[in-house]
Every structure is written in C-alpha cells, then in structure tokens.
C-alpha cells in the first residue's frame, strides 16, 4: 500500500449542492505516466486543484509518499514534491522567462528580507545556485533563445513551455500537467510529448496528465483514469479504457456505445475531444 508516490483515497469535493469530484481514488507510482480523461465538466481540473493544494478536499485523503496532506497549508504542497501547470496559463507575465523559473526555486531558498536587501553572503550564494539550476532547465526545454524575454510577449506555445519549466524548477517528484498541449499544433504537441517522456526518463519524475488529445494520451500513458460528472468510470491500460463501453457512452452517448465500439473513440479522439 505504501509504495505509491501519490495516492488519492475516496476524495470528494462539493461546491454548495454540486459535487464536482465524487469519491475518486487513484494512485501514481514512481516513474509512471497516468492520464485523467473525461468530457468537459467531469471534474478533472478540480481534482488537480485538490491535489496541488489550491482548494481543500471536502472529504477523503491525499497522500504523497504516505504523508497525509490534509494538515499541510496550501503553499507547502510544493515542498512535498507536487509541481503543476495550469489549464489557462498562470505565468507571472511581467517577468522574464528566467525570473518566472526562478520563482519556482522560491521554496528551496532561504534568503530573508534582510539578506536580500544587503545582497551579501547567503543571498548571493543562493541566487547563483538557483540561477545555475534554472539554466539547466532552460537548456533541457530548449528555450535558450527566449530566456530574457518578458513572458507576456511570448507565443502561447512558448508560454506553455515556460510554465512547464517553472514547474520543473520546483524539483517535483510528481508533475501535474493540466491540458498542456491544448491549442497547440501537431509539431508543438509532439515536442511536448517528447519532453514529457524525457522528464520521466532523465529526471525520474512521475506525471499525472489531464488531456483531451487522445492520440497523446494513448501514446504515452501507462494508465488512464476516466472521469464523468466527478465519478470514476474506469481505470486501466490505455487500450482497455478506450474500448470501455462507459467511456464511449460518456463521450458519444448511449447509442454509439452499443453500436460503435473502440473505433468510435479513436475517431472522436482525432476530432480533438
């Protein structure tokens, strides 16, 4: 039981009378890539918000390496190795790429206001260390050319990549990627897919992915977790989930589920569900 890196146990979140996430349990093991799929409004992003501390769970537990996060204040989730990107870019748009990535190093640094004002000793040493790590990430993500650009002036695809970099800069054990390829063209999507696989292979970081791009999900996931109306439909290997009648029903309706089979979801997937 304790082998899981991230474990959600019967997690529920309600907003007033609406249950956005209902009794969901899932786990991610070290080095795994797990995708969460589901139609719009299925509760995927809420699930991420709960896991990254943006909002508290109504009931259930979230464990990372066996540690219960229910008593952990939101800003300390990152210290337990949870890094994330947001669905609709949440960058610090007036800062440069380097500055954005450096914010990711924030929790690793200890410089106090007094140290910082004098810029001496620890402040200087930490600053140099942080910038060295950030340069490594910039090189890893191949964004050297835009390193000093103000983030707000970059293209959407570039900003997404910067956001991935910022999440990496927090030294996560698990990375939550919320629709990272949404709005990207084929080439950019393939680049990101390659980075995701590299992140796992070279940095040993596990990945939990929310994605509508079915090709990407089927290609790189070890396991897929399907949600609808906040409830788990099924979980399993990509090809199992793709042909699962409940999943097809959720996406295409009951008639398609009876007649269509797995081809229907594949077709729907290429339509960019």
């Amino acid at each position: 039981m304790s082998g899981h890196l991230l474990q959600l146990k019967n997690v529920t979140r309600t907003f007033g009378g609406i249950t956005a996430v209902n009794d969901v349990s899932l786990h991610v093991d070290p080095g795994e890539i797990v995708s969460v799929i589901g139609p719009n409004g299925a509760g995927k992003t809420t699930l991420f918000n709960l896991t990254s501390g943006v909002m508290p769970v109504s009931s259930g537990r979230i464990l990372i390496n066996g540690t219960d996060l229910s008593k952990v204040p939101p800003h300390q989730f990152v210290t337990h190795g949870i890094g994330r990107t947001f669905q609709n870019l949440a960058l610090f748009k007036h800062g440069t790429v380097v500055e954005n990535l450096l914010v990711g190093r924030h929790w690793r640094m200890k410089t106090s206001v007094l140290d910082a004002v004098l810029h001496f000793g620890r402040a200087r040493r930490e600053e140099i260390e942080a910038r060295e790590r950030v340069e490594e990430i910039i090189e890893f993500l191949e964004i050297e050319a835009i390193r000093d650009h103000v983030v707000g002036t970059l293209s959407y695809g570039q900003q997404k990549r910067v956001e991935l970099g910022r999440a990496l800069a927090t030294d996560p054990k698990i990375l939550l990627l919320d629709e990272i390829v949404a709005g990207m063209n084929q080439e950019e999507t393939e680049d990101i897919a390659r980075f995701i696989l590299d992140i796992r292979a070279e940095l040993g970081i596990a990945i939990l992915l929310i994605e509508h791009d079915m090709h990407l999900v089927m290609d790189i996931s070890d396991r897929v977790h399907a949600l609808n109306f906040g409830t788990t439909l099924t979980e399993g290997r990509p090809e199992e989930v793709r042909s699962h009648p409940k999943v097809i029903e959720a996406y295409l309706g009951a008639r398609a589920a009876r007649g269509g089979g797995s081809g229907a979801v594949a077709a729907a997937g290429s339509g960019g569900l």
Partner: protein
Amino acid sequence: MRSGFFKETIVEHIHLTDSRLQRAWILIGLAVLLTAPLWLNFYGLSLVTLMMITAIGAIGLNILTGWTGLISLGQTAFMVLGAYAYAISTETWGWPPLLGFALAGIVPMLASVLIGIPSLRLTGLYLAITTLASSFIVNHLVLEFDGLTNGSSGIFVNRPVIFGYAFNSDASLFYLVAGFGILAILLSLNLRRSRVGRAFFAIRDNDNAARVMGINLSAWKIYAFMVSSFVVGICGALYGIFLSFVTVDGFPFLLSIEALAILIVGGIGSIAGAVLGAIFLVGLPELLGMVFSFFGPEVQSLLATSAHEVKGVLYGLIIIFFLRLQPHGLMGLWSDLKRAWTIWPLRY
C-alpha cells in the same frame, strides 16, 4: 550600432548594472547630483532636496503598490508616523538622530502589520479604501494623544547632528537626503533581484500560481507592507526635518494621491520610474508657475494663494492623462525612445 552586451557567467546576470556604458552614465549622473550645491541657488537646491525626499517615499510605495500590486492610500499615515517617531524621539526624548531615523522606520513598520491585515483578504479598490481610512485614524490618534505629540501645535524639529557634524546648512541637508536616497535606490534594487522581489511580483501577477510555487501569500503580503512602510517612514522623518516642523497639517492626505500619481507617471513597478515620477511631479508646479506668469500677475497669484487646490486638480489631470495615453509612464516612454533610436531608420 551596438547590438547588445553579452554575458558569460551567472554572476554577470545578477549584477545591478548591465554594461560599462551604463556604469559610465550612472557615474556622470552621480557627479552632476553631488555637485548640485555648487551650481544651484538656494531655491533650486531646496527643490532638488524635496524631489529626493519625495522619490524616497515613492520608492517605498512602489514596493507595495508597484511590485506586490496592493494599492495603498495609506502613504500619508506612514509618513506621519515616521515623522512623529523621529520628532518625539530626538526632540522630546533627546535620542541621537540615527536612532531617531531607525525608530522612524520601525514605528510605521509595526503599524503596517495592523494596516496590512485587511490586505490578506482585500485587493484593488477595497484595499485602497481600507488604507485610506488608516490616514484619518492616524491623524486622529496624533491629535488625541497630545501629551506625546503636542496635538495640533506640532513639534519643532532641529537639523540633525550626526557624529558631531551638524547638518545645518542647506547643502549639508541636501547631502544627507542624497545619502538616504542613494541608499533607498540601492537597497530596493537588491530586493528586486532577490527571491523577495520575485515573491512580490509573483503575488501581483498571479497569486494562485505564486501559492502553488510555495509562496506563503499572507506572510509575503505583510512583508511587503513592512518593507514599504519602513522606507516611507524614513521619508516622513526627512520631510519633517525639511519642514523643520512636524504637524498633522504638514502631511495632508494629498501626499497619498501624489505618491500614487508619481508611480503612474513614472511607470508602475519600476524604481527608476518612481524617481523620474517624483522629479516630474515635484517640478511640475514650478513649471506651471512659469507658464502662469505669462498670463500676468493675477493668474500667477492664483497659484500662490490656492497652491493646494491647484495641485490637487493637477495630479488628477496628470493621472488621467498618463493612464489614457502612456500607461507605462515615463519609463515606457523612455524604452520606446531607446528602441526607436536603436533600430532607426527601420520601424521595427
């Protein structure tokens, strides 16, 4: 045409200056500033001194409003607290001026913790109104505790004597203020390039993402209030020394508006902008006086008799003008010009 300065080490990236050229310009600027008492008359010198004092206050507010995005109309309150802390400690209790300056920073800093608490839940206009109230509360407190503050009659402030040197002449006061000004610029630049400055602007640009990055929003917002009001308190003490007299009337609420106007005019979030804005806004009434004098003595006397009202109207107009036409302020104008100069004769 130069295409840029290339950096080879990490250390070069955290230098405050960009290049040898920039360092040369800074040295020239410093030389011009520090020789000012030699070539400026009495009036000009006191004007530049006032500009520097105002710039220190603007730099302080910039940390809170420019970097952290918390709009404050409490500038006056922190200035009053700083000025009274200095006046009471040095004049009434006979403390040495350096300790007086320390207290002038610490008292507003502690008060800002109280004033900053609403900022944990409020932002934008709601916070502005809350901090606005603090100005009036502080004024009332000063008038109520007249045993300590001398009430509405105020406290006379002597020029400081530091390490046996009396800052009596206007030139020496100028150098004292210049010293504080340079210190404020350097220390805030240091803050900006550190983890602290980045935490502030992260909160301003996206507080949700900032929290996911491990930034404790409550703590850092309060830190922003504390650092900002420390600097503003020092500004208040210097202003008290400049006026030689600390009263509630010497610190009208208009100062809060003026400080915000300075940030908007200079370019919000930029230290250089805060300095430029202060020079611009303090110099503007003088410029206006010159313009008014063209229209004969009656118009000119209007400026003299109702300076306060004219200033209020002026600040309002300036804020509207800049927000409408040049939202990035003088710094935005400067970078546009620089860009146009570098790429001329091409348009982009």
